[in-house]
């Protein structure tokens, strides 16, 4: 979706203001929202992209997390609006769901054994090949930012094979077929014209389906 979240290349967002000695969390509720959302592992990014643009810009980061978590709970049927308002469970315990454990949290920061994912797809492109980012405008979730569409780039490397993370407007994955992901280099001049420094580039990781031969 061509939403406010896809903001690469916009110029009117003001200056960057780092906070001195910034804490990891700014309030106790931020800690709990982070933990609740991470433990449930149900929220997809599209849900944050559905926040209306004016609200998206006004909300803090964890307020967006809270909003998308609540919407996800309603859509998945894990909780009703009334339950979320009252904090009281009507239906009792939901059985049969995996509940994240303390041991699993400990495992989240342990490097897994090196995976040797077999390359199950024949790459369409080779390193150093010129490609063009396709001009697609899906209403759901995509990882092809707007500022790249129609632009020429060069394949720098292939990362391996994975199903695209794109989702339709119902939040369902649109393509479960694994395909190569490439690191693609776009020169700053190609993206932004003569004003850009000719030495500069932007590197972006793109699924094969986002690309066509130049």
């Amino acid at each position, binding site marked *: 979706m061509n939403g406010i979240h896809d903001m690469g290349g916009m110029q009117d967002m003001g200056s960057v203001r780092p906070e001195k000695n910034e804490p990891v969390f700014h309030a106790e509720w931020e800690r709990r929202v982070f933990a609740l959302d991470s433990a449930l592992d149900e929220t997809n990014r599209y849900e944050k992209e559905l926040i209306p643009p004016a609200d998206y810009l006004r909300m803090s980061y964890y307020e967006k997390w809270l909003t998308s978590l609540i919407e996800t709970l309603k859509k998945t049927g894990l909780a009703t609006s009334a339950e979320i308002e009252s904090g009281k469970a009507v239906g009792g315990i939901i059985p049969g769901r995996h509940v994240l454990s303390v041991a699993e949290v400990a495992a989240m920061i342990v*490097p897994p054994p090196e995976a040797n994912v077999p390359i199950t797809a024949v790459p369409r492109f080779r390193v150093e090949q010129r490609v063009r980012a396709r001009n697609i405008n899906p209403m759901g979730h995509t990882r092809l930012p707007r500022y790249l569409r129609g632009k020429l780039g060069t394949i720098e490397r292939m990362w391996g094979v994975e199903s695209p993370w794109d989702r339709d407007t119902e939040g369902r994955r649109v393509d479960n077929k694994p395909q190569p992901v490439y690191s693609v280099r776009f020169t700053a001049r190609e993206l932004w014209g003569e004003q850009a420094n000719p030495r500069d580039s932007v590197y972006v990781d793109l699924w094969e389906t986002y690309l066509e031969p130049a």
Partner: protein
Amino acid sequence: MTPDLARAQEPGRDHDHQVVPSDPTLRVKALESLLVAKGIVDPAALDALVDTYEHKVGPRNGARVVARAWVDSAYKQRLLANSTAAIAELGYGGEEGEVMLVVENTAKVHNLVVCTLCSCYPWPVLGLPPVWYKSAAYRSRSVIDPRGVLGEFGLKLPDDVTVRVWDSTAQVRYLVLPERPPGTENMSESDLAGLVTRDAMVGVAKVSVRPQGNHV
């Protein structure tokens, strides 16, 4: 511009959080009670998640990776060739660091990491991202005006330095290997790690012998 947006852009606002309404505290408490009562979250696991990402994982991990690369050229070669495996040698990896790429700053190349679409960030080596990394200003302008953004962090790059911006759109997460500052030849690996800042590993600062102490 809406009044709220105008308010959000007033000078002197340190970060986005001042526009948060006052009720999230109660809403989140109610939400947690509800989800615990439904038996779909374990409060002990929630505490462990907070403790992990507030105290156990953070930029100190990345600083150790950088310092090791500075003192051990064989490690540095492995780090640049297979970043995920070399980072795992030091015990770091997992969520949001499943595929890592370490990119090296030199006198002639400067790397900058961003996630224009949201907030992708290398958790195992840097922890959770700071507010500025998730801000509209940083996400929008890093790709079109990286030199201007770096200037706002006090870093002025000469025109003949190549800038590479890495937009984290898929599974790969990026860590910048900063240049080792001059005058550190006799420092120990752990003292070197003490110089390395989060900002240098995102690419918005250089490492100096006397860290400013503002940004972790």
